[in-house]
């Protein structure tokens, strides 16, 4: 029995917008799930339905063996972290953090101990007597995390909590969130559009688009075996290289080719000759002595590595490289054949 189960969950807003179009998801106790997708994909609406802030149009939500589909948020025992903090402006930091404990009959000494513990963990002890408007964005989000984590709810729900923070705070709080979640083994659902954040946090990633789930899987499954073209392109920065062409039968086996060229890439997959889209991650492309000829048209240097955009007869390819290539340089490329992914050009689904 999964800890949290969404069955055919749907939400249509009164203006007719179909934000979520039938979601099925099973989450185990203690799992860290990230809902990943572009804005407007329905991930936040899904999260808000789990919290009880939106009433589902159809479908069912089961949490800890209880049907909570239409229960108000106060009867669900969730800890919610908002993107824009939503700290109570008329209360001090201390009062904000105490707020979730005050109406469940926690004794003042226990409240003080709980605030002390969570404030120390988030290093906000010195801010307790200040008001939210006196704090920086990063500190406000710390307080917001403290408010959600001062209890031990059934489930943490986080709506892009790090989206508005600068890079330094983002990395620090990201690590904190994961440590806290692991140490308490509290189930967490985390919404983001940042695929790097998703990869680093998640036990499993749920990729969403257009109100539907595109793929559910571990970060490595999502990255290495994208279920369709959307996932291939959305996950990874830059996304997968995608080349349109066809698979043809040759003497030495199947190979991928582009209509106007005589370049052939051997295919080892169990597939039939057809029109396909070939996908290849930038890190599996290497410069070689012979192979696909190309010309460097753009070179991005990022410190530990870089990306080079190469114009080739079969299309533009992005290659990860540790050397700095100069624009205009002529090179040959080798594609690592074991990492070739094939997609159906009509449906976009993976063939491998």
């Amino acid at each position, binding site marked *: 029995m999964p800890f949290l189960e969404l069955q055919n969950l749907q939400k249509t807003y009164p203006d007719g917008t179909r934000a979520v179009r039938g979601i099925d998801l099973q989450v185990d106790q203690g799992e860290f799930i990230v809902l990943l997708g572009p804005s407007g994909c329905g991930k936040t609406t899904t999260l808000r339905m789990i*919290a009880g*802030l939106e009433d589902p149009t159809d479908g069912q939500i089961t949490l800890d063996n209880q049907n909570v589909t239409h229960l108000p*948020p*106060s009867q669900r025992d969730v800890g919610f972290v908002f993107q824009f903090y*939503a700290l109570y*402006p008329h209360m001090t930091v201390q009062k904000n953090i105490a*707020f979730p404990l005050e109406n469940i009959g926690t004794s003042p000494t226990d409240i003080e101990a709980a605030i002390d513990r969570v404030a120390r963990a988030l290093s906000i002890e010195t801010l307790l007597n200040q008001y939210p408007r006196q704090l920086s*964005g990063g500190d*406000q989000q710390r307080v917001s995390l403290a408010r959600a984590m001062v209890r031990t709810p059934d489930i943490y729900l986080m709506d892009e909590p790090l989206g508005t923070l600068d890079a330094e705070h983002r990395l620090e709080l990201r690590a904190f969130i994961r440590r806290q979640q692991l140490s308490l083994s509290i189930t967490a659902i985390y919404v983001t559009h940042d695929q790097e954040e998703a990869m680093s946090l998640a036990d499993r990633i749920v990729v969403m688009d257009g109100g539907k789930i595109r793929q559910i899987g571990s970060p490595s499954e999502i990255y290495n075996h994208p279920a369709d073209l959307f996932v291939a392109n959305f996950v990874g920065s830059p996304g997968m290289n995608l080349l349109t062409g066809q698979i043809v039968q040759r003497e030495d086996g199947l190979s991928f080719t582009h209509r106007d060229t005589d370049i052939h890439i051997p295919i080892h997959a169990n597939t039939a000759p057809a029109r396909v889209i070939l996908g290849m991650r930038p890190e599996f492309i290497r410069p070689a002595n012979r192979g696909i000829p190309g010309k460097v048209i753009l070179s991005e240097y990022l410190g530990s590595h870089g990306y080079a955009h190469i114009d080739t007869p079969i299309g533009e390819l992005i290659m990860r490289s540790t050397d700095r290539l100069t624009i205009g340089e002529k090179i040959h490329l080798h594609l690592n054949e074991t990492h070739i992914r094939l997609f159906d050009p009509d449906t976009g689904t993976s063939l491998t």
Partner: protein
Amino acid sequence: MKYLRWLVIIPYFCLATLPLCWLFLTSLKTQEAAISPTASLIPTTAENTAPGGLSFSATLDAYRKLATPHTGKAHAFFHYLFNSVIIGLLSTLASVVLGTGCAYGFSRFRIAGARDWLFFILSTRFLPPLAVVVPVLMMYRAFDLPNTHLGLILLYTAFNLSLAVWLMKGFIDEIPRAYEEAALVDGYSPLQAFYKIILPHSATGMAVTAVFCLISAWNEYGFALALNNAEAVTVPVYFAGLQGNIQGIPWPQIAAGVLIFVVPIVSFTVLVRNHLLRGVTFGTIKQ
């Protein structure tokens, strides 16, 4: 720019306070000095001053007389002031409480035809209030409401409610929903969230609304006159009634009474002025 500002403020200040100064001077005069054809401007403590001079003998008689019923009147001034206070405060309280509740509903819940309802609420102010004096009087007679405090409280509440709803809706609309949602997921019921989150943030709006409602109820004359002749007579009606007095119009007493009458409303406004001026203090949610 700095001097230009004073150029506007000083003349306006004089214009605004001149009638009050005149009231104050008149309240210190005797009836004879008050109706003297020449203006005496300087109060002195001298016993006898020449009539028609610039100075006059100041006396607090007018204030003392307010404590005793005036000739032909059943009660002293303070009785009518008390009526005004009771009616003004209770109708203001009712308008603000009902208006806030109503505005919260319109602001936060989906109500069928909400826009039409809001227009209807506003439209109750389209008609000049005095146009409905006769029907209101007839209705009130059926319920024995004329001549009661309750009658005026109900009436002023009814008239001020539309203003209260519209003002409060504007203020509550400005409060981000995320605050309530945070309270809901923190384990509070919607009613608790309203009480703990919305109300503290509405304080500014409630203060503004209360000032407007109180001023309108405090100064209302037409209905107070039409609906009352004995019990719930308010200060404006009382003063107007003094004008037919057989001993002439008692200007010093009216002046003294009016000064006392403006004190509550001025002090109320001063009390809530921080709220009036503070404006929007909740800016911690970036939208």
